[in-house]
């Protein structure tokens, strides 16, 4: 199965190269079809890989289910029991290995990536940014897919860093070329801020990795997971801070989030979907995969601060949302709040909090992906994402889009029964029972504040629904040409809607994977 994992990266990379080799005049449809087929294959491949990972085997107990009443063991993900492994020496002079593998933490994220890229390509069959050049856009989306799947399956710190950087230039190009067509200077600034802040973050993270290497003598995550770097002070602490800061830029955690609102608001629809849906997850995944298992003691030292900043992010993100007048910026800021929840969950260092963070990761990817698709649809129909210019009474003008937007907002604010609920609930539960080495009082206080943040989240989403969807249809007449949900939009959004409901109703299909023993 390790061949399949490599194929998941090699196939889109090859497809991108082939797309670029095609003449520049290649039709947009042809490019989008190639992209859809290739990313569809990747999606099927990741499904097969997932099945292979979890299928029952004789003599192994991968799946251990815990009902609500059972006492789950309070252990954290540490050792990696990698599946579909590839491990060859690459640069012996630098002690770098080409070491890939997956486990139950990374597999759902890989599948999420494959799904969102597939939907983006499908969406591009009919709806593309006005800048044209769809051939290059699709090729860049595929390269981004390679980078993200690579990051999720890297089991070597240097390889992780490498794949982490792969997505930078393609995403920069996506924002810079296909971004907001009304604001050339703005989209260029947004793209450059994004790429520069992220590259600084990853360079800082690399310093942390090198310190880990100096202490432990290896970059291999499997070895490091088995023999973590002990000690919560000195070099280990510095390494943990550097890695946490680097990942926090990507995630992003307040106050390092300043690149995010512009990048999301100026990016084209597919760019925003991938940025919010998968790129932000690289940061939270890195914290779970690297920070906790490799530097457990040092992470415990910084966890209260991490939790504090995360809580500030929740509140600050929500307050910023209340003040937004731009639909895409609003959703972007809501991501800051949600990633704050995930950060808090990781910082609790408790099984509940971590499972919650992992769950919220997936849920946020699906729901925010859907939200950005909807925002893009509304923006395309009105040629602006300014809420004041769009006007009210969306229910009357575009009833289906209005309805879907309401659905996505409710899912995002954490309505029980939809995907957004379980992650945040578990995170708050985790903050109530933080890891044994953490100050419980602090976390309980933070839990209360985060709970208030959840209320604020509800407030701004309800305000959005009120300002955008409701209102007197007479005052805001429908534009003649605006069609409600088109067929391609329906096809692209249905999987996301279905998954939102499924994950809301049967959380244990995923949560069972993350009970670590």
């Amino acid at each position, binding site marked *: 199965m390790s061949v399949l994992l490599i194929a998941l990266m090699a196939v889109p990379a090859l497809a991108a190269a082939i797309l670029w080799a095609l003449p520049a005049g290649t039709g947009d449809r042809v490019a989008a079809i190639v992209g859809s087929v290739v990313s569809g294959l990747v999606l099927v491949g990741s499904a097969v890989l997932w099945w292979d990972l979890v299928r029952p085997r004789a003599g192994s107990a991968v799946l251990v289910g815990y009902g609500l009443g059972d006492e789950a063991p309070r252990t954290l993900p540490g050792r990696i029991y990698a599946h579909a492994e590839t491990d060859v020496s690459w640069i012996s002079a630098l002690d770098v290995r080409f070491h890939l593998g997956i486990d139950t933490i990374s597999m759902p994220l890989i599948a999420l990536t494959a799904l969102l890229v597939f939907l983006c390509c499908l969406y591009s069959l009919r709806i593309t940014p006005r800048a044209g050049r769809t051939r290059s856009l699709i090729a860049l989306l595929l390269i981004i897919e390679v980078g993200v799947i690579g990051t999720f399956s890297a089991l070597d710190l240097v390889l992780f860093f490498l794949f982490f950087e792969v997505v930078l*230039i393609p995403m920069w190009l996506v924002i810079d070329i296909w971004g907001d067509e009304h604001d050339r200077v703005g989209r260029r600034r947004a793209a450059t801020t994004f790429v520069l802040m992220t590259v600084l973050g990853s360079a800082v993270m690399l310093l942390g990795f090198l310190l880990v290497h100096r202490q432990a003598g290896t970059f291999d995550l499997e070895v490091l997971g088995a023999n973590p770097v002990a000690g919560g002070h000195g070099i280990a602490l510095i390494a943990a801070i550097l890695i946490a800061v680097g990942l926090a830029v990507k995630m992003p955690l307040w106050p390092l989030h300043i690149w995010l609102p512009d990048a999301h608001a100026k990016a084209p629809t597919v760019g925003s979907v991938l940025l919010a849906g998968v790129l932000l997850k690289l940061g939270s995944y890195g914290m779970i995969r690297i920070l906790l298992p490799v530097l457990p003691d040092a992470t415990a030292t910084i966890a209260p601060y991490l939790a504090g900043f995360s809580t500030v992010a929740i509140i600050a993100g929500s307050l910023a949302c209340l003040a937004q007048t731009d639909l895409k910026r609003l959703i972007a800021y809501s991501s800051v709040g949600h990633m704050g929840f995930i950060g808090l969950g990781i910082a609790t260092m408790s099984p509940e909090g971590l499972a919650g963070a992992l769950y919220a990761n997936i849920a946020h990817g699906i729901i925010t992906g859907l939200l950005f698709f909807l925002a893009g649809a509304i923006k395309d129909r009105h040629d602006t994402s300014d809420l004041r210019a769009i006007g009210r009474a969306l229910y009357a003008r575009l009833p289906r889009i209005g309805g879907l937007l309401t659905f996505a907002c409710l899912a995002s604010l954490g309505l029980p029964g939809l995907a957004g609920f379980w992650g945040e609930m578990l995170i708050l539960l985790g903050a109530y029972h933080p890891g044994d080495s953490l100050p419980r009082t602090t976390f309980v206080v933070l839990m209360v504040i985060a709970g208030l943040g959840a209320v604020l989240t509800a407030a701004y989403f309800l305000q959005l629904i009120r300002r955008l969807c409701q209102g007197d249809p007479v005052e805001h007449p429908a534009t003649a040409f605006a069609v409600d949900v088109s067929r391609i939009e329906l096809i692209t959004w249905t999987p996301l809607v279905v998954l939102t409901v499924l994950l809301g109703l049967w959380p244990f299909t995923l949560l069972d994977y993350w009970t670590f023993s």
Partner: protein
Amino acid sequence: MTITWTDWQATAVPLLLALGAVAVLLIDGFWTTGTKQLKHTVISLITGGVILFGLVFVMTQRDGFKPAFCRTAVEGPAECSLVLEPLTLGLWAVLLLGGLGVVGLSAYRLLSADIPVGEYHFLLLSALVGGTVLAGARDLATVVIALEVVSLPSFAMVALRRDRRGSEAALKAFLVSVLSTAVMLFGISYLYGVTGSIYLQTIATRMPGIDPDLRQVAFAAGLFVIVGFGFKIAAVPFHGWLPDTYSGAPVEVTAFLAVVSKSAGVAGLLVLVTFGIAPSGSDLRIVVAILAAVTMTVGNLAALRQVEAVRLLAWSSIGQVGFLLAPLAVGDAQAVVAYLAAYVVVTLGAFGAVAVVQRHRPGGLFLSDYRGMVRSEPGLGVALVFFLVVLAGLPPGLAGLFTKFAAFQSVIDAHYGWLALVMALNVMIGLAVYLRWIAELFRLPADDPFSVDIESPAVGVISICAGAAVVLSILPGTLFALSG
């Protein structure tokens, strides 16, 4: 002192280069019949052949250790002036590859017609003689002489195009070079006075044991030597001459300055710092580290404001030297050689691309002249993007990424945390520098897109550079195997 077989081996490459230099000068002087093209081609082939011999020699001698021109010392092991060891061979490989690339870029029709072809190749080979000797030099006298053999041809080459800008550029470089040599000789005389030897190895062994009163003198002497080299490699604050010289010289000569001349300077400093004046733990290493931090920051920040392609490359090459000085400051020769090799390959390619644009577009000095090249001239455009990405050190330019990585690793392992932070910051600034250019390349073409028939030698050199950069990106281990 008798000259042994080992001595001949150690000097075989510089000697042959020198013979080649004389040969091309004579051929140019006595060749009166036939076309200009034939003459140029023959001279290029001889120069290239001589350099290729050097490269073959380097390959056959790998892993050897051959001290040459040795003298039995009064105490301790023999003192040698020239040592052929993996590090020397790695540096030779870099220098010779750089030289070969410059020869390729100066083929017929590429080199502007008003540059005398014989003198040009003579000067190029002479500089390579100096560079190869410098990389193997293990005593201060050889270092100084070799460095002068590199420098003198360099500004003669700058002045080969006899116009005002060329003369001014050459004069600037000349004055700075003379000054830096004077400063260095001053430092060397003190070093000799303090330690009583000009052999680096002996200096290194005697340095810890010298009279405490003389410590300050030794430190100052080392400082003078480093400052002298700082001028040569244009480390900030001794960089003032570089941008004007780079933009005043013909592009091929600028490529030579950025590749061969700079590599030679770095090689000399590397030899001095690691073998002689600044053993591990010396305060001089901190001086070099500070120099590295300042150089990369100033170079990159200034590059950020440039609108001309050559000036941007000039300033960013200052930034790259800063990055080179970082592993040099901690004595990690392997990382330095690897970084230098990756830098040489892609810098040659970038200058090759710039030369093509400047030849075919009169006044095409600016970044905006490169607009839409990925679309209008895909081969050249994509290659240039790749070179710039390697210089920035981001995927897919893994050759650049891993050599930067090695620099980080050696700095972190030597406990220079502050320098690593400055480097991290400079990765960001450097990326901003190159992204401005890359953005122009990726835009849609303007009204008169750049699309021309590129001369086949230029296509060849740029393709080879791009191919080498791709191979080095897939197998970065090759870079680190260069020096053992």
